């Protein structure tokens, strides 16, 4: 059962995002040969799709089964499109340069630090009271087929919980438990925790690649310093680093350590293309809009934070590059967040 469930999750969490991420490759796209880029951008699109399918069902008080069916069908459609794009733009091994000794050392240190964090996510547990809500919502959703209609704390039906229902990250966890047949609690506390940590480093890696495009030898030390700061980031229980390693099954953690670095990465891509007077491809804009929508899946606050990030960086770029059109395109990418924010105020 566990082996079969794990294989199913390998498809949904590993193979599917990479294939779907192929949609974001092609002529004019950067990172065509990066499997990490395909994995991360594919995940952002899949999270965005889940959000778009799930929230109307939550608001209309529909069954969880409808969400599962709808998401499976759309995911498989994206999978087929991804295969088509992947065949057109296959991953090609890049000519690798000979790494220096320092680089090799940094890669080894980073690998050890990452392994440590993954192992700790499996063998250690963090007692966080918020799990009594989020993990219980996943568990109830999977067992009752209802979403945000049952009091997760104690007993009984409740009114639709709009504040949390508009950011249904726990329902995504319930989906993983449903398709894999594994126990929801184990999926949340172990599998999703490890997965989100790996995704976080995927996002940090993409940022590093953008920062050190001309000095690739600097990327491994950069990853080591990021990893060290995450490990020693428990300055308070409010830091994104604390959320990333301690509460890594909660949407808030994904917001702080996956979505925000992904926005940083995409803004670096867009601004670099602006600086080099190159047109920003449609796929990059779709990736940004998908990441904004994915932020809404993680937390309702994601609507505000992503718009702030894109807005402030966009205005800065306006002063530097004087490209009104690009700022307008950035604003268009924020529309999903604005829609979900409006929904929050209308229903709230």
């Amino acid at each position, binding site marked *: 059962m566990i082996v079969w469930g794990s294989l199913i999750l390998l498809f949904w969490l590993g193979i599917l995002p990479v294939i779907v991420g192929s949609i974001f490759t092609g002529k004019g796209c950067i990172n065509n040969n990066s499997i990490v880029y395909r994995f991360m951008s594919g995940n952002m699109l899949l999270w965005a799709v889940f959000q778009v399918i799930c929230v109307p069902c939550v608001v209309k008080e529909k069954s969880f089964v409808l969400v599962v069916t709808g998401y499976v069908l759309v995911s498989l459609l994206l999978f087929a499109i991804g295969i088509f794009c992947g065949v057109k733009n296959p991953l090609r091994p890049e000519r690798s340069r000979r790494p220096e000794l320092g680089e090799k050392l940094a890669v080894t240190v980073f690998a050890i630090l990452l392994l440590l964090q993954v192992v700790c996510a499996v063998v250690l547990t963090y007692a966080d009271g918020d799990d009594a809500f989020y993990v219980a919502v996943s568990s109830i959703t999977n067992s009752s087929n209802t979403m945000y209609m049952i009091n*997760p704390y104690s007993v009984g039906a409740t009114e639709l919980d709009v504040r949390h229902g508009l950011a249904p990250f726990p329902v995504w966890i319930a989906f993983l438990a449903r398709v894999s047949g594994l126990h929801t609690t184990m999926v949340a506390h172990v599998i999703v925790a490890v997965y989100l940590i790996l995704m976080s480093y995927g996002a940090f890696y993409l940022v590093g690649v953008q920062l050190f495009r001309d000095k690739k030898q600097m990327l491994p*030390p950069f990853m080591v310093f990021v990893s060290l700061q995450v490990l*020693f980031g*428990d*300055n308070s229980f409010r830091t994104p680093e604390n959320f990333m390693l*301690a509460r890594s099954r909660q949407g808030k953690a994904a917001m702080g350590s996956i979505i925000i670095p992904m926005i940083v990465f995409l803004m670096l891509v867009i601004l670099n293309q602006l600086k080099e007077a190159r047109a920003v491809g449609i796929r990059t804009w779709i990736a940004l809009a998908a990441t904004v929508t994915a932020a809404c899946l993680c937390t309702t606050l994601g609507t505000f934070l992503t718009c702030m990030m894109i807005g402030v960086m966009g205005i800065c770029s306006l002063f530097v590059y004087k490209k009104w059109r690009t700022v307008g395109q950035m604003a268009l990418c924020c529309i999903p967040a604005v829609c979900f924010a409006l929904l929050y105020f209308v229903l709230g």
Partner: protein
Amino acid sequence: MWKKAVDLFVTYMGSGILVAWFVISLVYLYLKERDSVKRIVFLYFPVIVLVLYFNPLFVKMVYGIIGEEIYYRFLWIMPMTLTISYTTVSICGRLKKGLQPFFAGLCTLLIVISGKLIYVNPFFSVAENEYHVPEAVVQICDAIAVEGREITAAFPMEMVQYVRQYDSTICMPHGREAILWDWGMDFPLLELLVQEEIDVEDLVYLTRDTENGGRFPCNYIIVREGTVLLGDLEKHGIVLFDTIEGYDVYFDTTFYIGY
């Protein structure tokens, strides 16, 4: 309101070393960074975020929307970890080859000194099983659960937050909301269950009499092993079901449970 924002900032940042390091990074980027893209993302953007964060008008506006408790999350968008790491590596790259390992070692030491290793946080412990909930919760829930039905059980405080994470078919007369907001006021049963001595009459009253104080009739009552019961529970039809992982599990035979 503004003072609260400052307090949140102070507790968010922890030791002042990290803030100092971040400010030094910003100064370095201002003086040395020539790439306009990196200046936007790692210099202008964090500075604007900080200015907004401490702006009383902004504080008032955002407090009104998201509330003061989570205002600190606005700081999440300031990429401190990325900014510090980028600056550190950039400085390292400008040094002579021979000096680079020393500088990297010094910065590593500074990270270790200025931060706190997350795994020494007292809330971390070794997981007792693959579910990451206490083994006692798993075993008790497995023992009392009835397939296809919901049952109600009263658990002591330390187990409350885990029960419905593991098995959502087990309901509780009091959940985590009792601990969060109304501890000891509207949830007398929760307060009673953590006493070393429990008056049986009180226990029966609070787990059965839904019209006069009890919230929901309980099929099971779980107390810590060794808790002294003052009175005769069996007289009321409540029998010891089992002792599991240091907890006595009592079963109320007077309620239909669906067997």
